[in-house]
């Protein structure tokens, strides 16, 4: 499972594929204060990126890789 759903936190691992986008969207809508951990993540498909952007999700931990982090921060930090 590339996304691990814990109580209020989704942990992204390795690559989040296009198929993850719908379950992710559903999960984020269910939770009041969802948090996302991208530490172990190496890539997320554009569809997931859109979902995170659209729902203005709080990112708890950013990925380790610098450039990837820069990309995500350009879209997700507020």
């Amino acid at each position, binding site marked *: 499972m590339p996304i691990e759903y814990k109580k209020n936190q989704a942990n992204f691992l390795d690559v989040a594929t296009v198929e993850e986008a*719908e379950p992710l969207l559903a999960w984020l809508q269910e939770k009041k204060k969802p948090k996302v951990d991208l530490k172990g993540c190496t890539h997320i498909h554009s569809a997931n990126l859109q979902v995170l952007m659209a729902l203005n999700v709080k990112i708890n931990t950013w990925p380790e890789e610098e450039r990837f982090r820069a990309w995500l921060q350009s879209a997700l930090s507020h």
Partner: protein
Amino acid sequence: MNPLLVQFLSEASDCLEGIAAKLMQLEKRPGDSDLMNELFRFVHTLKGNSGLFDFPEMTRVLHAAEDLMDAVRTGAVRQTKNFTDEILDAMDFVGGLTREIEAHGHYADTHRDEAVRIAHGLRALLSSGEAATSSVQETSTSPILASLPPQSFQRVPEAVKAALSNHIKYGESCFWIVYKPEEGCFFQGDDPFYLARHTPGQIWGCVENREPWAPPAALDPYRCIVDFQILAVAFKEELADHFRYVPDQVKILEVLPQWLHPQAVAHTHSDSNPASGTQQSEDALSEEIFESLTQVFRAQRVILEVAQDASDKKRRLSRIGTTLLNCAKAIGQPPELLEKIAALAKAAQESGDATALLTWMQDFQNAGFRSIATAKEEKVSAASETRSVEEAIEAKNAARSEEGSPASLAGTVAKSLKVDQVKIDRLMNLIGELVVSKNAIPYLAQRAENQFGVRELSREIKSQYSVINRIAEEMQDAIMQIRMMPVSVVFQRFPRLVRDISRKLGKEVSLVLEGEETEADKNIIEALADPLIHIVRNSLDHGLETPEVRKAQGKPATGTLTIRATQEADRAVIEITDDGKGINPEVVKRKAHEKGVIDEETLERISDEDAIHLIFAAGFSTAEVVSDLSGRGVGMDVVRSAVEKINGTIDLQSRVGKGTRLRISLPLSMAVTQVMIIESDGQIFGVPMDHVVETVRVPRSAVRVIKSAQMTLLRGRLVPLKTLNTLLRIPAKPQTSADDEYAVLVVRVGTDTLGVIVDEFRETVDVIQKPMTGVLSGLQAYSGSALMGDGSVLMVLNLKEII
């Protein structure tokens, strides 16, 4: 070469030939919709097939040609001389590519610009020049406009701009890339973010939504509405190559010095990078050193690129490593960094892959030749990550190509002999003649006995005949066997096809193939390929649901598509079954009525069973959106006509929510046709047994005349009667038997049953039917001719045409 590719090439050349011929005919007969449809189908097939391979330029041109033809076909655009010229040009281009692929397995990447130009020319015809200007990219930007930075460029942070100005200062080409992916790109398997992230020489990038976000409940995650902006220091060709699949969605603009703020230009690298590393490099490097380093690094990159294919690659790599080490030492870098350079250079030498080294060089240079010790670890993991993703993709591709060409195939290819079909056809003709001339021997025996009275000789001739007969029959059988091919030839394309399509559509499908060893005549198998592909595409596109929908309906998330081939008596049966949503007769009825396929009255009384068969009607397509896969309305009517052309039948069963089953029944061989011989006005004719339902004798008194049409009651059913003499315009009355009965041949043509009054029935025979050629080819009343044993010619009637 991959067998799939070999097949593609041979089909492509057929398609191209067909396109050229049809275009020529079309020019003589402009507006002929049948010709136009055939032409369209050729291009459609070719485009679909090219999509299976990594030939984006070819697919691009064919896609544009297809769109143009579709517009001409529906009358949206007029067919002009220009149209023919443009399409011919495009096909010449495609032909050139296929020849190059045939020779080298791929084509050179110098064709990109031409592909864009041709596709653009085709699209210009499509929209009379309007879309033309918008799809041209940077070339159309006026010089004044180009000198101004694009609005979005202001988003670039000052620090990045400063670093950028340094690159420009030292003569490196920097580009501003705006990538606006298509909304539906996810369905084509694209991941724009991945593509953007891996832009070569990228120094900065950002992503933003091009329109406000919909509320979460209404958000469609699969409609791509994000844009990417990227700054990259790279060669333009490199960038164009990176974005080669989406050239119409990206704009690549060279960053001009005047784009940057004047102060920014004046800035030196010294204050450009706040992330400083160790003590030694805290102080800025002098401009002189900075410049020299930039030049050294650039030279190394050039060497690396040149070295890619050179035989002394290892030596060059080791030298580059030394140079880099010396540079780092000269500007006083910490020992960890020196070690890292040495390790990278060594790894590159060993693996022959300098990607990691190049990445590091780029990063180091971007950071203004400062120690990037803090970021060092990330860099390493970044490099290995990129590699692991690449490896994963490679492994997937490998698995894919393996699936496309089963291992068993390699064995059969090696053992088999490739023979030109013409040679087999010649054998076939010869054996046909042998069978016919052999059949003349019994007549000879009869003459020997009756005319010359030599019974002994007659008996000997007969016994010799039986020997020749046995050998001839066996030989005929053997030659038929040569022409037999297993359906696996067609089936082997499906794993790849299903996989690719289901991925594009985001569906999960498991494909079950059964009875691949079932054999049929080569012509039949070949004719089967296209209809089957259409059917499979339709099943995937319209039949099977997405995993979410399936789960919601309590079905397993993975849909099953079964393709089963079996042999039933002298016919091969192919069943394509899916457990998708089935065909809803109500929807089909409504659509058919909307499209004018059926009238109001039919709409009212048509049964559900008949309604689903409407999908085979010409001009019927339920797809709302024209997609890459199916739904241009060429699907099912083409399938039916293709199957009927080879004397096959097609049957459809579907239950809403449960799935659909298509059953195609085909003759095993087209070479031998069973015909019934009938006689009328002293002439004999053949009628294919496929059409014959029964033979009956009807008393003259039982023939009724209703409104000048003859009818008779046959087991409670009213059967219309027609006289063969009338149908063939033979000026003679039909003859009755001694008991005053008509000989009525009950035939089925399509779905109609009717009786044909003839003079007499004769035996049924197996004949090798020859098509009508030359001046006779204009005679639509006959489907062909056959030679009889006594040397006479039997004309085989084409019932569909004469009734």
